[in-house]
């Protein structure tokens, strides 16, 4: 399985996305950091503390990498169907299910690890930058960071599940555009915040929403390949 994933990433030159991932992380940090820095002289600053800063950064990270996962999904699954290379792939002496699993695991793993990686990098940047440049009010401690980490893993895991939902819409018409559009839509929908001035809330904060969507995503992934041996590849 690992070998298949490696072949898959070689075939689609997935390593080429790494610089883009790095740029995204730096941009997210820059945007959120500038919001904090820009509001340093206001009466009410943007972020009272590290948690507030990270909650916005997390939203950006989740949204951006959910969409990113959509792009990769469309590249390695939908595009293969569209260009007909899936036909070639299925003439190899490898079970179709295994091939599809390898692809979907790549998407899932990419989404999970890029979110974790981005959060870690952002934390490191916060740790290095905040003592010198104003980002938020209360100084951050190492402890704050460590205690936020388990939740990062859980969130990343759920977002990774959600990232497979666009597969359903993309596969219906074998459309890469639909796949990415749905990734954007879902990303914005569940991470977008609603505010009444005092408190803000987003769908992602009701724990059952991401859990349900994550399970939904995994189910879509499963149903996309569980009958694949019987299907005709036109």
């Amino acid at each position, binding site marked *: 399985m690992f070998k298949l994933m490696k*072949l898959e990433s*070689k*075939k689609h*030159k997935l390593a080429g996305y790494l610089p883009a991932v790095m740029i995204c992380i730096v941009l997210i940090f820059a945007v959120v950091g500038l919001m904090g820095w820009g509001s340093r002289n206001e009466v009410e600053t943007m972020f009272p503390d590290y948690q507030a800063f990270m909650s916005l950064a997390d939203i950006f990270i989740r949204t951006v990498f959910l969409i990113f996962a959509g792009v990769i999904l469309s590249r390695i699954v939908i595009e293969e169907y569209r*260009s*007909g*290379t899936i*036909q*070639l*792939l*299925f*003439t*190899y*002496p*490898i*079970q179709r299910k295994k091939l599809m699993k390898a692809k979907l695991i790549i998407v899932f793993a990419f989404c999970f690890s890029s979110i974790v990686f981005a959060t870690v990098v952002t934390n490191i940047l916060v740790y290095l930058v905040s003592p010198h440049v104003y980002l938020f009010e209360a100084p951050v401690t190492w402890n704050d960071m460590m205690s936020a980490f388990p939740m990062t893993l859980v969130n990343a895991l759920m977002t990774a599940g959600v990232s497979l939902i666009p597969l359903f819409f993309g596969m219906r018409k074998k459309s890469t555009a639909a796949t990415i559009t749905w990734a954007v839509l879902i990303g914005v929908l569940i991470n977008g915040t609603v505010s009444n001035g005092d408190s803000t809330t987003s769908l992602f904060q009701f724990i059952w929403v991401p859990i349900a969507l994550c399970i939904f995503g995994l189910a879509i992934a499963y149903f996309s390949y569980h009958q694949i*041996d*019987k*299907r*005709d*590849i*036109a």
Partner: protein
Amino acid sequence: MTYILQTSQLTKSYNGKEVASGVDMHVKQGEIYGFLGPNGAGKTTIMKMITNLIKPTSGDIEIFGSKLTDTSVEVLKRMGTIIEYPIFYERLTARENLSLHCEYMGYYDDKAIEQALELVKLHNIDNKKVKEFSLGMKQRLGIARAISTKPELLVLDEPINGLDPVGIKDLRELFKLLCREYGVTLIVSSHILAEMEQMADTIGIIQHGKLVKEVTMKSINGEQTEYIEVMILDVKKAVYVLEEKLKVRNYKVFDERTIRIYDVDLTQAELSKAFVMHDIGIESINKKHSSLEEYFLNTMNEKEIHIS
């Protein structure tokens, strides 16, 4: 007789319409099997069923002595295929495509790719991406890919499409070489009769999803004799001359102006001399032998089907 591939009552229907129906194919080990039929006859559908890409509605396929099931993948290791038209990862170079192919096939031999490219005479492709290739080059590359893993069975759908005459000749020789020297069995589909005639050992004629006939080229060549075709102005007079003066019985009046004489002892010179002496105007006189084309058309006509 050992068959490397045989199908029994192979049928595929889409929405109740049969695209292939009751196909009984028999491919012998080490031969070139020509799959002949007009466009849309169901050649590709049958080839896709052989390579397990689409699943038969009913009927069986037996390949390398075992039945093909939904999850048979091991047999694919021993096969090289091009279905419909060669498909590549267009963003990669030719060599990258081939090396990926070998890895997926589980075939590891560094020299295999170079050998395959050499066999199809594809040169100077070093760092070109496949999307810059012409159709003919893709066709060659597709064949290189199919043979790179040294398969026992090659399934090639319209491999000479898009090739120039030199390319076609090269490929024909390559196919023969693979078959005679390396013992590879080839199933090659085409709608070009002349190509099949020069290449195939056995011909399967397919029409409207049915395998109408499966014959060896040897038997076609044996069945069909040479004849002289004359176009004259006065058929009646010509028949008289043939019967009375030349004592020819084995002839056929084809239409008002054409007679075919199957008597092989008669030479064109004798014939024209006899006609001229009896003042019968000759428009043309030709020695011909029935080709696969005629056989094919006859077979089609027997079935009262017109080819498009």
